[in-house]
């Protein structure tokens, strides 16, 4: 019997961005077809861009007397002969959505039952989200890789950055996370539950609203293995031989369900959303779900 699953080639941003576009383009059209209200889905996440108190640069404008002198941007003013400029920050409510996809070796797993590897699906999801967000004028950034990008082609830029950057196998430290940003984390969360919970909580402490997406290969859930099987962990290389794999099925399934539940509990506790996505299902499903969560959260 041929093995049920295998580790596949890491997918770069180049191909996935295409598929993500396809997915993303599917979302509004799906909605249009179904409800003909696509436009309303994408508006009103937050107020339009305005200057205000915030962290990020918004614009330079001439200094008006009476303003706090400390706000004068001397560097910009020095380039101009006639005016003194003040740097405006963007209003803080402006939305930044951070994306992060786990690219550890375990994410590269693809079984026969699945259509794509977890990593591939995760990237598609992330890019599709980026595309959607960028389209509606949000700032998207890739945690640990880029700063938030405000651009129509933000997804493309992210993909580019991803190609150049190192694969992100470690959980992000996230120094850049702002208090009012959203964070989409896509991973298979196969590390011990306590570790995962700790990591999520540390992100929560920064005041971020998180959207956790767990990628699951169907094989990881239904455990169809039978007979004598030697399992190997693509991450640690650890090997484990089961004399009679089907005997482990019930226990394993219970354990996996318990893990998922534990992560869900954690996210519930943090007030985050939790989405479980199987790689044999359509990416759009997760996308719609994520989208709903994001929409609910943003208000």
């Amino acid at each position, binding site marked *: 019997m041929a*093995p049920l*699953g295998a580790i596949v080639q890491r997918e770069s941003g180049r191909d996935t961005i295409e598929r993500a576009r396809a997915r993303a383009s599917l979302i509004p059209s799906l909605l249009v077809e179904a409800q003909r209200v696509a436009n309303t889905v994408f508006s009103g996440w937050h107020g339009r861009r305005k200057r205000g108190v915030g962290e990020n640069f918004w614009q330079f404008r001439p200094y008006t007397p009476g303003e706090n002198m400390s706000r004068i941007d001397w560097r910009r003013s020095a380039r101009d002969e006639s005016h003194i400029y003040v740097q405006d920050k963007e209003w803080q409510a402006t939305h930044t959505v951070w994306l992060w996809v786990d690219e550890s070796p375990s994410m590269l797993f693809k079984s026969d039952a699945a259509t794509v590897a977890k990593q591939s699906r995760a990237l598609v999801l992330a890019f599709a989200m980026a595309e959607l967000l960028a389209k509606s004028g949000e700032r998207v950034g890739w945690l640990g890789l880029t700063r938030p990008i405000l651009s129509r082609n933000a997804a493309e830029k992210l993909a580019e950055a991803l190609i150049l950057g190192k694969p992100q196998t470690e959980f992000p430290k996230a120094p850049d996370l702002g208090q009012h940003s959203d964070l989409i984390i896509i991973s298979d969360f196969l590390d011990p539950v306590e570790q995962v919970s700790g990591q999520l909580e540390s992100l929560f402490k920064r005041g971020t609203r998180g959207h956790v997406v767990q990628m699951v290969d169907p094989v990881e859930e239904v455990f169809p293995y039978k007979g004598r099987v030697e*399992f190997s962990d693509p991450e640690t290389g650890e090997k484990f031989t089961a004399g*009679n794999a089907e005997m482990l099925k019930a226990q*394993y399934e219970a354990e996996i369900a318990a893990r998922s539940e534990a992560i869900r509990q954690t996210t519930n506790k943090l007030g985050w959303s939790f989405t479980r996505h199987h790689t044999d299902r359509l990416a759009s499903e997760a996308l719609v779900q994520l989208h709903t969560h994001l929409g609910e959260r943003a208000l």
Partner: protein
Amino acid sequence: MFGLPLAFTSPWLLMALISLPIIWWLLRLTPPKPQEEVFPPTRILARLQEKEETPAQSPWWLTLLRLLMAALVIFAMAGPILNPDETALKGDGPIMIVMDDGWASAQEWETRRNTALVLIEEAKNAGRTVILESTAGHENWTGEPLSPEEAASLLQASESIAIEPDHSKTAQRIKAKIKSNNPGQIVWLSDGLSREGTKQLGDTIISTNKATTLYQADIENLLLIETISNEPKELFGTLARAQSDGAQEASIIARDLKGLVISRTNALFNDGETKTRFAFDGPVELRNQIARLEVETAKNAAAVQLLDDNNRRRLVGLISGENFDRNQPLLSPLYYISRALEPFSDLRRADDANVTASVPELINQGVSAIALADVGVITEAAEKQLTKWINEGGVLIRFSGPRLAASPEGNLLPVAIRPGDRNLGGALSWETPKSLAPFERDSPFFGINPPRDVLVKKQLLALQETNLEEKTWATLEDGTPLVTAKKQGAGWIILYHVGSDADWSNLPLSGTFVEMLRRTVNLSRSNGTIPSNNETISLPPLRVLNGEGQFIPPETSIKPLVISAGDSKTVTPENPPGFYGTEDGFTALNLFEEETNLVPITQEGFIGDFEKQNYLTGASFDFKIWLIVLAAILLLIDCLAVLWMAGALRTKRPTRSAVANISILVVGLWVLTNTSPVFAQETDENFDFQSALKTRLAYVVTGITDVDNISEAGMRGLTFFISSRTALEPGEPIGLDISQDELSFYSLIYWPVDPRAELPSPETVARIDAYMKEGGSILFDTRDQVSGVLGGTSASPAAKTLQQILSTLDIPPLEPVPTDHVLTKSFYLLERFPGRYAGGELWVEKSQNLNPVEGRRPARAGDGVSSIMITSNDMAGAWAVDGSLRPLLPTIPPDPTQRNYAYRSGVNLMMYALTGNYKADQVHLPALLQRLGQ
């Protein structure tokens, strides 16, 4: 073998035991190379397994168990037999096997034959010839010495015969054989019964002074049906058995000609009884169809009784020339006929003394015979009908009397009658009353002995004619005819020259009269199986019985049954029991028709002693199957042990699931064994019970999965919302099959309208209509506010569907919910009723403006709740939540307030449906107005 009475059918298979060490080695061998799998959650797996600590090799006792299993299978395949069949031949020279091969051997024929075959096998090993002797008369058993092979093949092809073995004949035959062939040993395979000639046969065998062996059969299970009589109320039979110890119950089955079971009865032998009676009741028409009685468990020809026309109860019509409404029944001419006919036939009295009227009536009832008691003149019409009926097989029995004596005319008399009667022994006669002459051989009455004290005082005299003697069945002492008969067509005309009452003779008072009438009536429809004259009839075999009592098509060796008048039918090898004749008319030949005593052969005092042997049956015990069963049990234990070692039986959860599995299995079996309608009924009740006890939100199952899923999730969401915000705590929401489920338990039913769903049938529409009229409310949701007809101008597909559904319903005029409608204040104060979409209106029944003078709509809508509500806002979509109570679908526009209002709308709808116009009650109006700030 090994000092045990143990033998193997294929001992060489035991060689396979050598392979046990190899099996042991294989079992201990390291397992095969595992399948290699990349599996990311391997760490989780490994953690699971840490708790288990499975040993690398299977424990020694498991290996032992498996080796034992293998050894058992090998032993089983070698065919072990405990107490193998062994006989010992004695003497030398040919072996004579005298075999009882009659009906009593049929049941155990296999063991008898096998015993004989074992003997033959041994003779073959000893190089001796075999003489086969049959006591029942197997024709092809020549009684000459045969080679063992020939004898074996002859025996293999032989079955038991359905006749009684003739021991005296056999004794004579083998006496000569013994002399000519000089057998070295004589073996008698007896059927265990002693009969006439058994002692003779035994003595003959013993007196040869050879080695003699008698195989004694077990006759405990031998049952036979002796006699049958079809009484007015029941069909009785007698059952006999050979031994008298212990109580025994037997079931007797009655079958018709086609072999279909008509009835079944039980007979019980008490301890010490060898005879018992059984009875079949039931209408005579049904009993008349019985063609075969058999003891259910017995497989022999004597346990079968075949019934022919003679056992049938005939319908006899009675017509009297007199008014039979007399107060003195003993003087009625029909009284004696009735009494005489009753035991074996069923009587139909004509309601009308008018012969013309009563004849067709009786014929229509299907009578086989008609008795005319002292009827003189028969009208032409009646005569015509009677003649036709007689030609078809009817039997007309006429009795004399004053009326017939007065006008002895017409064609319906067997002989010409001299008018007037003949007086014997009267005051004016010197003749004395005459008694009956013995019946002639060619008379159907032959065999009956008329008692001397039957005297005839008056009779009708027949005119002399040439063939008068042929027509006469009975005469008086002086030769004058007493009973004359004429065959006409298929039937008979029979005249009793005496009256049917005691006036003319005391014949009607005697038992002879009963017997004579019985034979007379039996002529009807029996198509001549009883020869009337001094002739013999030859009946071809129709179906015959084999030794086991089964019908077989007659073989060529079976001869026609020849019956001559007065002869009783006997069973011979040429005439085995069965039906003889043609399909239209046949007679039954049975092994036993009289009382029979079954005597065990052990009570026979032979002049010498036989060496006694038992048949080779229960002694040898083939325990191959038991070894295999044992191996299977061990296999089961092995499986359990493996499961246990793998921990499947240890942790709590799998145990519970195993229990659940078993219970599912048990329930499944139970369901299978019970009829499904019953089951459906029960679940229905359960289902109704649940709904009746708790208020539940209900939705209509459309059959479209995604719609139904959203409906279900929506109801769940609303249920949660209602439970957490109001005093109402609804039960689990329920999906309804609108065409079948009982709707009366639900006050509000949510109906998502989808153009893909099937339109309800007219019956369903009637149900919906009834539900709405009885006070239920249905919330139709077209879920298409954006394009819907209620919000827009053109009709959307869902709206069209809704229109189609509603077109057949009795719908009152509708209006959008007015601002002062109860719905707006039944729980929350609401102005609009959004769902996923906010734009659609909620339509309800137009409220009756009860107070037009006031000019403003009061917050009441008559007495009832609007039975129909229509929205296009996709309420369920807004309510729908997943397992962790998170909304499933975004609202449009994505506004959590809108979702909140959607839930509130749901609460208001539910409250409205439950409380009706309670909130609209005037009592509360001031408070409501105050809150509304008006």
